[in-house]
Structure formats: structure tokens, C-alpha cells
């Protein structure tokens, strides 16, 4: 846009055409255009005005000019480019891209700049030349980025030009067939063939192309056609499922292809959300969208639509990532540099995925570049991040490697809290991906991920935790319609608690969960109407709840270990996406899950007429190695549909049920890294959920504004909750510490986004409830006397406003406002004395709430100046997290100290945290 404005300004100041008559002698030997221009500048008094990036260094000029005019030299130079030039004030040469600056023609033409239609009526002047194409700043029909096609030829009379190219999936880079490309205002359209190729004639001037295909986001591209040309389009999948949030991490693709109006958060945008300690974070950005929240600052994991933290399936390249956060949830474990796709399915989950009942977070690592070496690095106050992309065999195979590390201990030292003074925390993660393209139909990807965290909160306990993932994926294409992926992977999560006090009770606890996963995924595009996905998947779990080992010769701890849990979880699935017509689309799917607890194992049998305690055991059964001692099966059905009233307004509805055979048990009210994962067994049943949702989606003004309103209702079965004061760590018989009961959650979610303009951003609001009911047959199995009560993360109101305002080209302001209802809490309502000590008496569980959470962050970004020859492009970013310095408690707790009851509130960041960041690119 700026260039265009500049041109308009120039136009008004140019007085007349002036031809330079001084002819030149010039010899160019294998010179680039830039070098040639520099040579002309040296030899003559011409000066050139241009943007260096326009000049294609691959073009080499070998010419000898004798007594040639500047025009003829430049015409030769720019022959193979889409550059034009204009000479004014005798010695000044302006280079322009695509457009010609018209010298005299506009004198005859009405100087009015066309307001309504950007197609200039050629009849206004009887001329053999086509009229110049003016684009005004105020033109309504052009928004966002404009793609220019071809080189303007002032001598052409042609009114339509052919435009062709490929339409590809932005993420997978696969061609998309049957995509309709439509220019609505002119009623011109075409469809792509099976290779994704299209070609059609479109009129000169501005054109707005719309892409239409069920399963893909509608996308608008503004083009200015000067001549025939090629333009490839990249579009995003929308899937027919409700509520998918796409956060695209890699926004480094040619920005020209990106048109406003896609439901995405790009890394470029995440950069504008003020963040704590300057670390970009996809997971944190996701929590600013409706339906995704965290229990509190500094708690692990997220809650999606009132579900527990263990009900989210985090998949990194199809492999489970058990703990997606670092540093007690303050940073996400996902490297933003290497992530190309980040999708959240919070409503209907594709049949391909199972095993978790609330949501799927699908994270995709980008494919390393096969053409040239690339690198990226960041050095920060807390973290450092380096990533490289290394082609091994050009255009065939390449390697991606990225590592991130931290040196955050000094932050904890800076926190003036007795309990944190002796604390330390650090993390490290690394990701590697190797991709080899054997031929058009076969490729192999090998990926590895490793993360480790080390922290010590109470000074004598050191906790470490690690995620490890290894995976191999073989992608095979049978034909254009039939494709497969065979995935073999292993994921593990380990934590280790090392207690090294001065008493003779030193110990070491080690927990380990390991899963081996084999999956065959098939996609069959049968026709325009049907697309089938089907496959099988199987997972083998080994959980070692750990052992306690005495540490040092003086330790009195007796070694102790809890038996391993083994299980096999298998599934077969099929789904069909049915595109009946432009208006109606369905997606139906079914997944059959089989879960078997495997021996060797010893399982207790409890007296069913008494609560499960050590005292009610009536027997024990021992099972041989790999003997299936308990099998649970479940059929999970998925249905979703969409009806489009018109191109910009649709209604979607979905219904699905699911089962989960693994449970996360936490000793605390909020999740922590030392929470253990427990498999279902003889005494712990799988958890189940059913969800119905309905939503309205409306876009305005060519997708500049998006509004969505959704509502959902979920019912759960066998949700695990703990008995009061339960202890899960190294507990041989967890079933005696937990209760299982029904729950439900419901809510309304509203999202309003503005994607373009000086002020952009989004407002997200959700009202949601999450409730649980534990009404067993015995007093100790009842909570709140069997009445429904809110879960620990039931936070009805949740509002996020993210706003960016561009002050000028160089300066922008950003802000993030977050408001949440306070988390439920069990409060002491009185006290009593027994046995000489004073104790608290607690209210019903979660009867009260901690104060509401409110936080405002602001950021200010300043781009470096736009001097053309500057080596590095820089930008400053200054942000203040929690600018109001509000002390938002994440917990309130009570301690009996010296016989007196004291109340404390704890918070993670209670004062404003300013961060100044300097970035530069070159």
C-alpha cells in the first residue's frame, strides 16, 4: 500500500515528460541488474530509486551498449523482469514493479481517481493504449494484501488475461482438486483439476478471487491483473467439525498469499500479544480463545470446555506428549520455531483420534526445507532457542534440528519469598525431524523430541521430569485418491523426586510411563461427495509407578516399589465426510476401542458391600504375564453437520461420545508435573463423555470481521476425584484413595475477531460451568453429602481481549486483558480443639471462590527505520505483564502454626513485569 501512496504522490508532482538525450557507452559482463545500475550511476549522473529486493540477482546481463539511450539500456536490463521505470527531472530514474508510471496519458484522462470500480473505463479516452490502472487508497474493494500479476504493458489493448496456477493445502502442501475459484462480482469461475491446477481468463484490473470447497476455509485473494500470469494459492482446511481453532505457527510463507479472513493465529500475531518474559507461547495464546483455560497461573495443563487436564490429547506429530509445559506451566514445551501447525479440536474430535474425552491438540512440526540451509535463533533473559534446517540431498531429504534451554534460576533467586529463595528451576528441549522423499508416492519421516525440567521448590527436594518421543512415519500414495500413513512411535514421561534433607530419611522416587504406538491411517477420496478416512491403531502401555529407594548409607527408608501396570489399547475407526451440496455437509464417524489390562499383575478384590479400603479386601488375584485380566470396550460415535445459509453464514451442530482409559491423579487442587497417570484396571473404571454442541458462524466485510457463537453440553461418567487428604504417590492401592462419579459441563462461547485495519485483535468470552457429583453408598464415598459441586477449575466467566493498534507504520501498541471468575475453594468456616491442638473445620468442598482474576498486559513495538541499505532489520518490543500489579491469588491456604491458624494467599506474579526485547533480522 505504501508504495502505491508514494506513486500517487509522485504523480502529482511530476510536471512533464522529459527525455534524457545524453547517450551512453556501457559494457556489462555477467553483471546483475543491481551491479548494472550501480555502473550506470558511476558513469553518468543518473540516480536510481528502487527497493533492492525487487532486483533478481539470478539474472545476469552480458551486453555492450554503444551510444545507447538510457531507455534502451533499461529496457534491455528489465526485459526479463516485471520492473518498469520512469525518468524525471532528467537524471532521476524511479523503478516500479508491475505498474508503469504514466507520463502524459493522465493529462487527457480525467484526473479523478476511480472510486467505485477499479476497472477503468477505457472509453474515456480515445487512445490505442490501455488505460492505466489506478488504485486508490480509499478503494473499498481492496483490502489486505494485493497480489500483482504480470507486468503492465502500456501498449496493450487486451482486456482479459489468463491466470493459472495451483491450489495447495497450506499445511501439507498437497494439491487440492475440485476447488472452485470464483470472482463473484463478475460471475467468472473455474475449478481445479485433480492436480490442483486451474486456468481462466480474467479481466484486467482488480479482481477478488474466492476459493470454495467444503472442508476448506473460504479464502479471498485480491489480485491486480496487469498481464497474464501465474499465481499459486494456499488454503487452509476447515474440517466440518465444529470448534476447531487453527493456530498457524509458520507465517513465513510469502505474505502475499495470505489473505485476511482465516481463523488463525499466526506466530507473527502471537508476537504482538504481550507475554511474560518475552517467550512466545502457542499454548498461552490458545488460552486466550474461548473454551480453553488454565486452572490458575503456574498450573500445568489446560482445561477444555470444563474437562479435566487429563482429558486432552496432546499430539506432537501424531505421538502423545504427556506434559506439554515447562517450568510448572509457565512456558509451553512446544518450540514455536519448529511448529508449523497447531490445531485444537475441542468439539468433535476426528474418529482418527481417541483415548481422551475432552480435546485433541494437534501439533505439527514443519517439514525442513530441502532447497537451502536455514537457521533461526533467539537469545533471551530466560531462554535461548536455535533451530536449523539442513538439506541432506537437495530436493529429496533434509533435517530439522532445534534446541531450547533456559537459565531461569536467577528469577527464582530474585523472588523475595523464603520458600522460593533456595529454589531452582531450569529446562531444556530438543526436537529433530528428518524427512526423505523417495519418490512422488513415498516418503519417510523420522522425528525425535526430548524435554527435561529440573526444579527444586522446597530446598531439599529436587524434582525432574522428562518427555521423550521417537517416531517414524511412512507416507504412501496408492493413487491420487488413496493415501496412507503408517506411524510407529514411542512416547514416555518420567519424573523423579529426590529428597536430600539432613534427616536420615533421604529417598528417591522414580515414576515412568511408556507407550508404544502403531497406527495405520488411510484416506480415500472416493468422489466429490464422499471422503473416507479409516484405519487401525494400537497402543501398548507400561507404567512403572516407581520405587522408593533409600539415599545414602544413613537413610532409614526401606526400599519399596509399586507393581507395573501394563495394558493394550486398540481401536479401529472409519469416518466419511459427505458434501451433499454447497449448502449441506456432514461428517460421520465411528471408533471402536478395546482396552485390556495385562498381567503380570496382582489385583485386589473388594467386598462390594463396603467402601474400598485396606480393610475391605476379600481376596487377591494374580495374573500371568500378558494375561488380559480386565477388558473394557467402547463404541465412540461422531457426528457433525453444517448448513450454509450463504457464503458467509452457517450453522453447525455435532454430537459425539468417547472413552478414556487413563487417568491423571493429582495430590493438589491444580495439576503439577508430579501428578501420576494411572491406567484403568479391575477397580478403576474408564471415564466416559458425551458432548452435544451447536454453533453459528458469520463473517462480515470479506472476512475482516468474524463472529462465532457456540454452545455445548457435556455429560461425564466415572470422573475420578480423590478422597479428602488422599496420597497418590507410591500408593499400591490407588483405588482406596479415589472416588468415581458423574459430572457435567456446559457453556456458551463467543468470539469476535477483527482481522484487518489499524486496530485488530479479538474478544473472546465464555460462560461455562463444570460440575461433579460423588454420591457413594458410604459416608466416606460422599462429597458434600452427595450433592453436585463445582470442580476446582469451574470458572464461569472468562473474558480475553487482545488488541493491537498500529500507531504508524513503525510503531504499534498491543494489549491483553484477561478476566476470569475466581476458582472454587474449600474454606475453613470454624475451628475446634481436640487432643490439645487446634484444627480447622472446612466448608463443603468448593463452596467458596478465590477473588476474581484480572490482568492487563501491554506491549509496544517499534520497528527500526526503513532505510533500504541497512544491514539488519530490527525491531524493539517492550512489554509489561500484569501492568496493574494486581496480586491475583492462585491459591488461598491455611496452616496451623504454633497452635494458631493462619491464612495465606499465594500468587505467581504479583507485580508488573517489564521486559524489553530487541530483535533483528538479516
Amino acid at each position, binding site marked *: 500500500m505504501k508504495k502505491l501512496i508514494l506513486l500517487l504522490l509522485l504523480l502529482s508532482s511530476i510536471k512533464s515528460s522529459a527525455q534524457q538525450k545524453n547517450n551512453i557507452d556501457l559494457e556489462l559482463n555477467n553483471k546483475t541488474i543491481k551491479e548494472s545500475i550501480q555502473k550506470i550511476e558511476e558513469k553518468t549522473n543518473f540516480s536510481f530509486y528502487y527497493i533492492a529486493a525487487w532486483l533478481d540477482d539470478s539474472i545476469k546481463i552480458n551486453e555492450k551498449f554503444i551510444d545507447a539511450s538510457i531507455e534502451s539500456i533499461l529496457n534491455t536490463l528489465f526485459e526479463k523482469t516485471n520492473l518498469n521505470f520512469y525518468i524525471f527531472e532528467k537524471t532521476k530514474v524511479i523503478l516500479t514493479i508491475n505498474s508503469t508510471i504514466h507520463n502524459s496519458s493522465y493529462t487527457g484522462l480525467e484526473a479523478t481517481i476511480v472510486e467505485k470500480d477499479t476497472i477503468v473505463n477505457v472509453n474515456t479516452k480515445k487512445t490505442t493504449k490501455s488505460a492505466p490502472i489506478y488504485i486508490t487508497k480509499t478503494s473499498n474493494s481492496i483490502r489486505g494484501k494485493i497480489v500483482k500479476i504480470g507486468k503492465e504493458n502500456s501498449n496493450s489493448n487486451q482486456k482479459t488475461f489468463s491466470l493459472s496456477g495451483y491450489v495447495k493445502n497450506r499445511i501439507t502442501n498437497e494439491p487440492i482438486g475440485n476447488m472452485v475459484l470464483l470472482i463473484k462480482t463478475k460471475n467468472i469461475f473455474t475449478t481445479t483439476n485433480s492436480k490442483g491446477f486451474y486456468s481462466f481468463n480474467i479481466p484486467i484490473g482488480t479482481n477478488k478471487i474466492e476459493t470454495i470447497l467444503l472442508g476448506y476455509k473460504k479464502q479471498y485473494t485480491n489480485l491486480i491483473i496487469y498481464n497474464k500470469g501465474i499465481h499459486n494459492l494456499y488454503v487452509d482446511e476447515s474440517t466440518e467439525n465444529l470448534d476447531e481453532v487453527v493456530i498457524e505457527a509458520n507465517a513465513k510463507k510469502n505474505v502475499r498469499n495470505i489473505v485476511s479472513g482465516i481463523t488463525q493465529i499466526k506466530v507473527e500475531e502471537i508476537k504482538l500479544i504481550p507475554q511474560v518474559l518475552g517467550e512466545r507461547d502457542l499454548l498461552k495464546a490458545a488460552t486466550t480463545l474461548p473454551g480453553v483455560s488454565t486452572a490458575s497461573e503456574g498450573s500445568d495443563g489446560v482445561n477444555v470446555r470444563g474437562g479435566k487436564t487429563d482429558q486432552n490429547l496432546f499430539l506432537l506429530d501424531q505421538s502423545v506428549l504427556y506434559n506439554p509445559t515447562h517450568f510448572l506451566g509457565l512456558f509451553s514445551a512446544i518450540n514455536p520455531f519448529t511448529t508449523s501447525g497447531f490445531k485444537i479440536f475441542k468439539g468433535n474430535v476426528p474418529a482418527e483420534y481417541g483415548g481422551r474425552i475432552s480435546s485433541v491438540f494437534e501439533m505439527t512440526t514443519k517439514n525442513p526445507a530441502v532447497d537451502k540451509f536455514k537457521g533461526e535463533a533467539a537469545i533471551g533473559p530466560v531462554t535461548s532457542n536455535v533451530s536449523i534446517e539442513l538439506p541432506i540431498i537437495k530436493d529429496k531429504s533434509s533435517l530439522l534440528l532445534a534446541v531450547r534451554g533456559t537459565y531461569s534460576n536467577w528469577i527464582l533467586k530474585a523472588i523475595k*519469598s523464603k520458600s522460593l529463595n533456595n529454589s531452582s528451576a531450569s529446562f531444556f528441549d530438543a526436537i529433530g525431524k528428518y524427512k526423505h522423499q523417495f519418490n512422488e508416492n513415498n516418503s519417510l519421516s523420522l522425528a525425535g523430541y526430548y524435554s527435561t525440567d529440573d526444579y527444586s521448590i522446597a530446598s531439599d527436594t529436587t524434582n525432574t521430569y522428562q518427555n521423550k518421543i521417537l517416531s517414524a512415519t511412512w507416507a504412501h500414495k496408492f493413487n491420487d485418491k488413496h493415501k496412507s500413513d503408517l506411524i510407529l512411535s514411542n512416547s514416555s514421561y518420567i519424573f523423579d523426586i529426590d529428597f536430600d534433607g539432613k534427616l536420615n530419611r533421604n529417598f528417591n522416587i522414580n515414576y515412568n510411563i511408556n507407550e508404544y504406538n502403531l497406527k495405520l491411517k488411510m484416506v480415500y477420496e472416493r468422489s466429490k461427495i464422499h471422503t473416507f478416512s479409516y484405519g487401525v491403531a494400537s497402543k501398548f502401555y507400561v507404567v512403572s509407578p516407581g520405587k522408593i529407594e533409600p539415599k545414602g548409607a544413613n537413610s532409614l527408608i526401606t526400599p519399596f516399589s509399586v507393581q507395573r501396570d501394563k495394558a493394550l489399547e486398540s481401536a479401529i475407526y472409519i469416518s466419511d465426510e459427505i458434501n451433499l451440496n454447497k449448502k449441506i455437509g456432514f461428517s460421520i464417524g465411528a471408533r471402536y476401542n478395546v482396552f485390556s489390562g495385562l498381567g503380570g499383575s496382582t489385583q485386589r478384590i473388594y467386598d462390594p458391600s463396603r467402601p474400598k479400603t485396606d480393610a475391605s479386601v476379600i481376596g487377591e488375584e494374580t495374573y500371568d504375564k500378558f494375561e488380559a485380566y480386565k477388558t473394557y470396550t467402547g463404541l465412540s460415535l461422531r457426528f457433525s453437520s453444517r448448513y450454509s445459509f450463504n457464503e458467509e453464514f452457517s450453522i453447525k451442530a455435532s454430537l459425539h461420545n468417547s472413552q478414556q482409559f487413563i487417568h491423571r491423579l493429582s495430590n493438589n487442587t491444580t495439576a503439577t508435573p508430579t501428578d501420576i497417570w494411572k491406567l484403568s484396571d479391575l477397580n478403576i473404571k474408564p471415564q466416559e463423555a458425551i458432548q452435544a454442541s451447536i454453533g453459528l458462524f458469520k463473517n462480515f466485510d470479506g472476512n475482516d470481521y468474524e463472529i462465532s457463537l457456540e454452545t455445548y453440553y457435556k455429560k461425564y461418567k466415572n470422573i475420578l476425584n480423590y478422597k479428602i487428604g488422599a496420597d497418590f504417590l507410591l500408593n499400591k492401592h490407588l483405588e482406596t484413595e479415589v472416588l468415581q462419579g458423574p459430572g457435567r459441563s456446559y457453556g456458551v462461547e463467543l468470539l469476535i475477531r477483527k482481522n484487518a485495519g489499524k486496530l485488530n485483535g479479538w474478544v473472546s468470552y465464555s460462560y461455562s460451568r463444570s460440575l461433579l457429583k460423588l454420591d457413594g453408598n458410604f459416608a466416606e464415598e460422599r462429597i458434600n453429602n452427595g450433592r453436585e459441586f463445582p470442580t476446582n477449575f469451574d470458572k464461569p466467566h472468562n473474558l480475553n481481549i487482545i488488541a493491537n493498534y498500529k500507531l504508524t507504520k513503525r510503531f504499534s501498541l498491543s494489549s491483553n486483558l484477561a478476566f476470569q471468575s475466581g476458582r472454587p475453594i474449600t474454606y475453613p468456616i*470454624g475451628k475446634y480443639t481436640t487432643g490439645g491442638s487446634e484444627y480447622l473445620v472446612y466448608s463443603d468442598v468448593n463452596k467458596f471462590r478465590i477473588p476474581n482474576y484480572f490482568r492487563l498486559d501491554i506491549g509496544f513495538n517499534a520497528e527500526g527505520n526503513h532505510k533500504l541499505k541497512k544491514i539488519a532489520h530490527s525491531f524493539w518490543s517492550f512489554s509489561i505483564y500484569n501492568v496493574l500489579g494486581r496480586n491475583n491469588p492462585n491459591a488461598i491456604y491455611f496452616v496451623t502454626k504454633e497452635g494458631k491458624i493462619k491464612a495465606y494467599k*499465594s500468587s505467581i506474579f504479583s507485580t508488573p513485569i517489564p521486559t524489553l526485547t530487541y530483535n533483528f533480522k538479516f
Partner: protein
Amino acid sequence: MKKYTLYILVFMLCTSCVEEIDLRNFTSDTILVVEANLTNEIKHHSVKLSRTTPLDSVSTLYETNAIVRIKDDQQNVYLFTEMNNGVYTSTQAFKAEINTNYTLEIKTTDGETYISTPQKVEAINDIDDIKIKIDSNSSNQTGVTIYVTSESENTKANYYKYTYEETYIVRAPYWSLYKLVIGNSPRNIVRNDNLDAEASRTCYKTEKSIDLLQTETRSLSSNSVINFPIQFIKQTDSKIWHRYSIIVKQHIQSYDAYIYYKTLKKLSISENVFSQVQQGFIVGNMNATSNLDKKIIGLFEVNSVSQKRVFFNFIDLFPNHGLSFTKDCLIEAPKIIEVVDGDVSYPLYEALTVRKLRFARDNEVPTTQLPGRFKITKKECVDCRYIASNIKPNFWID
């Protein structure tokens, strides 16, 4: 393209992340609190009844005029009468028999009736040994640890609770029978030659345990409690400076009682920023009969008790201790009258009347630090009756 991001500056100003807040009070119904332990000792057993109080309250609310009785499954009924402060004592001495179920019934003046589930003695197991060992604690301070050992073949004796009572000698290092008497003016202070014959040099002090001490043997290979630490006493703690005695009581609990107290303890220990135990109302073994929503706190516990007493002398454990037993008894010798910048004060008079110090010794050679005629010190350093009893307990062995 390469991109380098350089964070130049960050300030961290995060101040205290944990702060104390005011307790909030809720006006809610008070809840009946029961403390009842029936043991296999023949005695007049007692039941304590009280009510919960608001968080900021300093007084205790006793439950009076309630009807309390224990029934067994042999149709025996033991009645309890109110003594004082919510303590109800059985009218007859009795003991809990093994293999007999007991229930506690309480009827309060508001008409509510509460009844326990039947409870019985799980098992009997005697304390075998109590050991005294010189040890050091986590802060590397020297002291004494008291350990209990109880070996058993009884498979039902799995859950143990310990209580103890310690009795120790308190000595007045500046014991004196003399007193200073104040005459008709603050300047007129003399040593009274009429001896205070009651003033004691040696006294006995008894304290009960407060902590909940529990252990279990179910998870162990043998059903024995070996060297379970009852308590650690620092060498500098004056209670072991002379002669010390402890009686340890071992209760064999039921699983339910064990869990109840364990949960109670867990909910009252300190926590850190990143972890909290799920708090909640702990359900005991008593219920309201008419209104199921009516809460009651506490446990009716029926268990067996065995006890053992040991004595030790400080000098036997630490013959070369090098401690000064008078370090808590600072000696002063104030002037009778002092004039500073024209202001007249009477330091000795003030020490005796305001700070209640007592005569220790005559100051034969006054110095600049000790200018007065009399050496005085804290009253308990002269007469131990101020902090303990001078009556030797019956069980005491010198």
C-alpha cells in the same frame, strides 16, 4: 534467512509471592465436636464435648447438659455425668473388652441425637522397649531422641498411635529463702530476715503431648514397630537438664481411626506455593440420627493401650556438657536511687515491683555493672514453684 533475537533487558520485580491475609469469618451453625477414647484400662473414662468456634475466636465453647452414654453389644449401658468444661465422666469404672462392640450416644440440649457406628478393640500389643539416644536433628543440633519399639506377632495390630506425658525436674539455680521488703519509701528496701520457708529449689513439671504420632506396620515385612521416634529434645532445652521421665502410651487403632487422624494431620501441615492438599470436611464415625445434613466432628475411638515409663539423668548422657544452667537467669544489682539530668529514679524498686524480680544473693563487692547491694533475678530462678509443682509425683523414682 537468519534471525537473531536479543533480549537486552528484563527487570524482575516480583515481590513476596506468599502473603498472610486476614481470616474471613462465616456465620454458620456451630458443629458438635466429640473427643472420646475408650480403652482397655479399667478407669472412669471420659468424653469431651465442645462446639466449633469462629476462626478469630479465642474462647472455647463447651457443650453442657448433654446426655452421654456408651452401650455395648452385651446390653450393658455406661452412663456419663458432666464434670466441668464439657467433660463427661463415666459413673462407673470399666474397660473395653476385646471382641465386644461399643457405641456412643449423645443427646444435646437442642434435641439432636448423635450415634456412633459400633467400635471394638482391634488388638493388644505391649511396648517392649523405650530407648534414649544421643542424636542430632536436621539443623545439626545435639540432643536426645526417644524411640519406641514394639514387636508383635499379632497380625491385627497394624495401626499405632502414640501419646506421651513427660515429667521433669525444674531447679531454681539461685534458690534463696530470703526476700526483699519495701518499706515506707522506694528508697527503703531491706532484706527480710524472716525466711520464706516455702520457696522450693526442686520442682516437678508434667506436660502432655500435642502432636499426632502415628505409624503403621501393614506395609512392613514384619508386624513390628522398631525404633519409632517419639520426640527429639535439644540438649539446650532445660527440661532435660536434671532428671527427666517420659511415659509413652501406645494405642492399637482400627484402620478407620488411623486414617481419620492421618487425614486430620495432613490437612493441618504447612504447604508451599505450588502444592496444596485437597481440603475438606473429614467424616468420622458419628452421625446425627434425625437430620443427616447435620454435621458432627470427631471420632469415638475404642482401642487398647499399653504404656511404659523411662527415666534418665542429664549428667549420665552428657557428662562433659559444658552448659551453664544459669544462662536463663540473668543477675542484676540495680542502684537504690539514680539521678540522671536531674530526674530521680529508683531502679531497684522498679525491678522488684514492675518486673517482679526476686532476691538471689547479697552483692558483697559492687561493680560498675552490678552497682547495687542486692543481686536479684527472675522469680522462677529463685523459687521453682512459679513454673512447676514442688510435690513429687507418686511414680517418681530418684
